[in-house]
């Protein structure tokens, strides 16, 4: 009886090991990526590969363990992730290089943007473009208020002056004229009546139809390694 139970236990352990191994191997396959992706990809990123953004830190597992222990006892300045490192701006810029970005992320590292960094974290791409959410932009479209609430133009060319729009807190209207990164070839209207409606803006940010020109100044690369 005792021997029979031991054999049963052994078979159970073996079965568990086999099932776990199959599961682990399956999860490593590219076709299983969809199972552990936290949500749908942003419009245009459908064909992106996981490894384009999710990168391992260099070094062996042992080196990483050692580095973290050294960090804990103050022998090292920074810790090291054991698996994948955080997605950083460079991962986005690898495909989305912009020579004339109106709001490039790096500008927000300047000391004077401390308040903006606290409020909306504009120094990181992922603060507004949260991946796996299915949305084009994941921030409320009134974020311009953070930096532009004191905007004053001496020669305002717009039919309703910016100062008045600001006074009336019409922050949703900004994106109706201005393309945040300035990558769409578009003539900014001076007539506030022609501004894109709030509903259309929100739909666009959620991944809906383009509200700006389809013609872009600089196209995103097909892959991060694409040199064309």
């Amino acid at each position, binding site marked *: 009886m005792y021997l029979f139970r031991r054999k049963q236990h052994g078979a159970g352990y073996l079965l568990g090991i086999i099932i776990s191994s199959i599961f682990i191997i399956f999860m490593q396959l590219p076709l299983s990526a969809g199972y552990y992706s936290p949500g749908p990809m942003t419009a245009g990123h459908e064909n992106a590969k996981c490894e384009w953004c999710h990168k391992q830190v*260099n070094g062996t597992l042992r*080196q990483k363990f050692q580095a973290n222990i050294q960090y804990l006892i103050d022998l090292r300045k920074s810790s090291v992730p054991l698996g994948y490192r955080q997605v950083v701006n460079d991962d986005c810029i690898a495909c989305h290089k912009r020579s004339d970005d109106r709001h*490039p992320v790096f500008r927000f*590292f*300047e*000391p*004077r943007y401390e308040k903006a960094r606290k409020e909306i974290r504009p120094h990181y791409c992922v603060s507004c473009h949260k991946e796996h959410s299915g949305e084009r932009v994941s921030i409320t479209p009134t974020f311009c208020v953070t930096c532009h609430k004191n*905007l004053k133009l001496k020669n305002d060319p717009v039919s309703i002056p910016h100062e008045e729009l600001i006074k009336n807190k019409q922050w949703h209207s900004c994106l109706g004229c201005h393309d945040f990164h300035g990558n769409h070839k578009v003539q900014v209207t001076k007539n506030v009546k022609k501004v894109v409606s709030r509903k259309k803006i929100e739909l666009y940010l959620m991944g809906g139809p383009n509200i700006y020109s389809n013609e872009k100044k600089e196209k995103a690369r097909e892959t991060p390694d694409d040199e064309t």
Partner: protein
Amino acid sequence: MMKHRNFVLLSLFLSTVIVYLFVTAPPPLVTEGKVGPKIPVARVFEILNEENKIVRNMYTKDIVGNSKTSGLKYSEYWKESDVEAGPLPAQFLRATAVSLEKSKLRLGLFLGSDYPINSSNKFSGDQLERFLLLKQSGKPQFFFVKDVALYSYMFADVAVVKPCVECHNKHKDSPKTDWKLDNVMGATTWTYPEEYVTYDELVELILTLRNAFRNAYSLYIKKVSSFKVQPEIREKWPKDGYFLPSVDVFMEAINQKASSKTFNAIAQLRQNGYVANSDVISGARDTGKI
């Protein structure tokens, strides 16, 4: 008996962990594997700023400043396809900064003022306080930006030639119209994440900055190729007429004007044992910024 056994097992386990983590440790990760003398980043910023000052003065005086002789135009709208003009000095610096951002180094370069033409370049918060201190004392300001963990050095941006003053005084959006020559019109702020850099990193930073100057000037030359009547782009400079120096000639001029200064600064660093300018570092510590 049981307690004794647990103690032996625990000791064995800990000994194995210590041997695993420290005694037979593989080489540390490359991110922390810097070797060589530590050069304080404040000194590095001073060297880079001197290079930038030389190039900025050269572009402002010799290129933009001679626009009356050359007939070449410079406009804030220079990037528009229907505008035949080149970048203004502030935009040249901005183009340099954009190029730096594209490099692998995390070197930041920014231009701002308390009275900028474009309100988005207006200083605020701690940076404004630093700028006012800079204007008052005449000394550059070294400080640490806590929330992004960046070392920062702010240098005065002085009106060196008449066109700076004239353009800022005449501009329709300028909030200040009584600028005079030699006024501190703004400041150039540098940022870098490390407190110290190695000699190799210093050289790489200088080369990266030089490359950024090249890229910024190349953008202008590329734009010129779309002009209906293009200026001759070879050895001659705008002081001689409708000419522009080629990218290589422009870079050679930078080399001649900046290299000896930069070399002397590096040599001085070595002579002094790579120590920081004590005034700068102690000043930053006193204010709790480092």
